[in-house]
């Protein structure tokens, strides 16, 4: 017993841990900046196609998202496999688009309303029928700024 205590007593490493909180905060801030918070769970499968002529979406607060794709496996037995539209965190009919846009609009200051962009996140395997219907509805609601979400083609220079 005495043998042990002697040994430990000699090497008493009192390392200062005052910097530990800094490190943890650094990590925290890093992830706060890097991670993109998704406000809604995806109910449809969306794998956007590839393209080359891409533009970045500038202000995230002025972007609303419309998802189009086939329901994920979880929802397949209720909603089938036909491509569907998702607004916010639930499935929606095409006719609900104007209300969705209006709800988004009221949250944006009036001067910035002309800059609102609709990001269409559409699965590559979906046929144009539903996309066309959504586009028509957007035009009717005079939401004309649209971004077709796409990934950068890996072989592009």
């Amino acid at each position: 017993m005495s043998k042990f205590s002697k040994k430990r007593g000699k090497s008493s490493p009192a390392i200062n841990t005052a910097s530990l909180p800094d490190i943890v905060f650094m990590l925290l801030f890093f992830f706060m900046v890097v991670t993109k918070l998704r406000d809604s769970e995806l109910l449809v499968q969306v794998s956007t196609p590839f393209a080359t002529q891409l533009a970045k979406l500038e202000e995230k607060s002025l972007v609303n998202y419309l998802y189009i794709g086939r329901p994920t496996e979880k929802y397949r037995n209720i909603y089938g496999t036909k491509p569907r539209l998702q607004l916010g965190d639930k499935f929606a009919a095409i006719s609900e688009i104007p209300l969705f846009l209006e709800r988004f609009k009221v949250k944006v200051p009036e001067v910035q309303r002309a800059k609102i962009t609709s990001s269409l996140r559409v699965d590559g395997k979906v046929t144009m029928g539903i996309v066309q219907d959504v586009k028509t509805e957007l035009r009717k609601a005079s939401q004309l700024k649209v971004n077709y979400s796409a990934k950068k083609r890996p072989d592009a220079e």
Partner: protein
Amino acid sequence: MAKRSSRDRMSTEINAGSMADIAFLLLIFFLVTTTIVEDKGITVKLPPWSEETPDITQLKSRNVFAVLVNARNELLVRGEPMSIDVLRERAKEFIANPANREDLAEKPTKAIISLKNDRGTNYETYLSVYNELKAAYDELWTELSQRKYGVPYSEDLPTAWRKTIKDEIPMVLSEAEPTNFGEEN
């Protein structure tokens, strides 16, 4: 009692000096592995809604570059089947018309690209066709910008420059109401 005192002597603090190393290790690990999600895409401006469909038959046929995509994702450009790989080149040639050919656009300002798809066309195909047509314009803008200002075209150019370029080669892409032959059920 004796036991306890010996414990107190041993160490009252946990050695946390290596914690920083672990934290850094984690930090570097995530720095390397995370790909920052960026929202990118093709930005388009949809035409305002109007009940009557625009009539392109009144235009001179030499000024119209009609692109049709059917439900089997095949292209028909100006009445001939075409592969998507050459679409960009053909579109560029049509708009710029460097050889002043009779059957291509009179001048870039008069060129109109008409895109029509079927409701059964794959979105992927539609977007890549759109991408190629946009790329044709982008390349023409870059060429013109290089000639005029010596810099490639980008959104960062002064507004006046961009306006001059877009006045010379405006992007006119009209999308017709799609046909409905291959809509899936």
